[in-house]
C-alpha cells in the first residue's frame, strides 16, 4: 500500500470558519460592476449607431448612472478590503497575469470615459437638470469659468463617437473581468470555468438593457430594448446550461461542485432565484408585452435586475463552499 500524506492549510485550526470569507460586499460589487458594464455597452452602441432620436434614453440618459453605480460598487469593494489604507498600492503596478490588477486599471478607465460621454449627452438627456446646473454655476464664483465647461462639452460632442468606441471596449472588458475575477481562482472548482466571463458580461448587458426599459418613455424604444433583453436572457440561459455541462463533465471535484446546484444545498437558490425569478419570469412577461398585453412597465426590468443580483450572490457563495478536498 502506498500512503500519501496531504497537508493543506485546511488542516489549520478553524480553517472551516474562514471559508465564508466574502460576505455581501463582493456580490454587490460584482453586480454593480456588471450593471455599469451593461450601461457602458448599451449606451455606447446607441451612440455609435446615431440613434439618439430613436433611443433617447439609451443614447442620452443611461450613461449618467455608470459612474454613480460603479462608485457604489467600489464603496462595497472597499468595505471588504482588510487593509483599506493600502488600496493605492494597486496603482503602483500592473500585473498582466492578475485579474485584480486588470480590474483595478479598468475601473480607473471607466471614470474619464463615462464623464466625457456624460458631457456629450447630458444637455439632451436631462435638459431641466442642465438648465438648473448652468444657472447655478453662473451665479456661483465659478461663473466666469463656465466658458471652459462649454468648450469641454463642445469637444466631447465633437469626438462623441470615438469616446463611445473606447467606452464600448472598456465596458466589455469590465463585464468580462467581473466573471474572470472568480474563474481565475483555480482553488474553487465551482468558479473554475472560463465561461464565467461571458456569463457575467451577458448578465451585465441584460441588466443594463433592463435599466433602459425602466427609463424609456418612448414606446418604440421600450419595445426594442424589451426584445433585446429577451435575446440576452435566452443567451444567458444557454450559457448557464453550458456552464453546468462543463462542470458536470469535468473532474470529480468539478462534478461535486456542480452537484451543489443540481440537488445539493444551493439547488433551490440557483433554480428558483436565478433561473425562475431572475430569467424565466421576466422573459415570460416580456413575451406577453411584445404580444401586446399590457404589463406594468417596471415589473420585467426589476425582476431582471433582481436576478442579476441573485446570480452574483449564489455564484460567490457557491464558489466558497466548493473545494478540491473534502473536509
Amino acid at each position, binding site marked *: 500500500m502506498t500512503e500519501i500524506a496531504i497537508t493543506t492549510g485546511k488542516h489549520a485550526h478553524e480553517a472551516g470558519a474562514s471559508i465564508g470569507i466574502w460576505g455581501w460586499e463582493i456580490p454587490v460589487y460584482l453586480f454593480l460592476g456588471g450593471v455599469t458594464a451593461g450601461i457602458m455597452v448599451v449606451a455606447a452602441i446607441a451612440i455609435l449607431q446615431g440613434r439618439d432620436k430613436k433611443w433617447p434614453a439609451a443614447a442620452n440618459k443611461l450613461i449618467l448612472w455608470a459612474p454613480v453605480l460603479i462608485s457604489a460598487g467600489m464603496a462595497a469593494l472597499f468595505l471588504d478590503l482588510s487593509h483599506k489604507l493600502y488600496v493605492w498600492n494597486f496603482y503602483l503596478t500592473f500585473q498582466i497575469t492578475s485579474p485584480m490588477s486588470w480590474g483595478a486599471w479598468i475601473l480607473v478607465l471607466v471614470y474619464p470615459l463615462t464623464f466625457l460621454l456624460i458631457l456629450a449627452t447630458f444637455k439632451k438627456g436631462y435638459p431641466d437638470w442642465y438648465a438648473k446646473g448652468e444657472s447655478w454655476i453662473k451665479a456661483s464664483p465659478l461663473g466666469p469659468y463656465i466658458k471652459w465647461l462649454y468648450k469641454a462639452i463642445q469637444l466631447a460632442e465633437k469626438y462623441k463617437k470615438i469616446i463611445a468606441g473606447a467606452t464600448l471596449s472598456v465596458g466589455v472588458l469590465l463585464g468580462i473581468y467581473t466573471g474572470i475575477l472568480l474563474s481565475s481562482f483555480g482553488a474553487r472548482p465551482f468558479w473554475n470555468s472560463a465561461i464565467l466571463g461571458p456569463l457575467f458580461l451577458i448578465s451585465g448587458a441584460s441588466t443594463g438593457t433592463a435599466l433602459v426599459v425602466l427609463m424609456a418613455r418612448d414606446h418604440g424604444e421600450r419595445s426594442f430594448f424589451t426584445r433585446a433583453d429577451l435575446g440576452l436572457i435566452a443567451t444567458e440561459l444557454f450559457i448557464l446550461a453550458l456552464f453546468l455541462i462543463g462542470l458536470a463533465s469535468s473532474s470529480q471535484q468539478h462534478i461535486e461542485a456542480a452537484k451543489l446546484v443540481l440537488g445539493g*444545498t444551493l439547488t*433551490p437558490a440557483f433554480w*428558483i432565484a436565478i433561473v*425562475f*425569478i431572475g430569467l424565466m*419570469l421576466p422573459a415570460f412577461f416580456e413575451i406577453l408585452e411584445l404580444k401586446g*398585453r*399590457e404589463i*406594468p412597465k417596471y*415589473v420585467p426590468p426589476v425582476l431582471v435586475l433582481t436576478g442579476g443580483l441573485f446570480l452574483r450572490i449564489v455564484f460567490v457563495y457557491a464558489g466558497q463552499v466548493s473545494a478540491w478536498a473534502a473536509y
Partner: protein
Amino acid sequence: MQPKPYSSPYVMGVLLGLILLASFFITGQGLGASGAFQRAIVAVEKSISPEHVNQNSYLAHYGGGKENPLANYLIFQIIGVFVGGLISGVMSGRFRVEINHGPQITDRQRWLFAIIGGAFFGFGSKLARGCTSGVALTGGASLSLGSWATMMAIFAGAYATAYFVRRLWI
C-alpha cells in the same frame, strides 16, 4: 387595461383544497404561512445574536446551531405565494401600489391597525401552534380536533370583535 373581475370564491376554495392535497402528495407536508415568517424572524435574530437563538430552546428548534432557519419548505412556499400573486396580479391587470381601507380612516390609520391586528394574530397563532393555513386548513383537512377548535376560535374571535372595529371598514 381594465382589471379582470375576481374569480368565484367557491371555485377558488375548491382549488385551494386541491392545492393542499397536491402539497401533501408532493412534499408530504401541508400549507403554512406563519411558520415561514417565524423562521424569517429567527434568521434575523440569528444573524444578530446566534447565542440567543441557541440558548432559547423554542428558537433553537427552528434553526439553532448549524441549521439554517430558512432551509425549510415553508419559506419556498411563501416565495411561491408572492410570485404567484405577482403573476396573477400582472396577468389580470390588477398590479399596482394601493392601500385598501374604509372611507372613514386614513392610510396611516389603516397601517397602524393592520400592524396591531397582525401582531395579535401572530401572537395567537404561536399560542395555537399555527395560523389559518397551517392549523385551520392543513390540520382541519386531516380532521385534527385541535385544528377544528382553533378554526372555531378564529371565527368566533372575528365575529365577537367585528362590531367594535366596524368603523375601520364602513
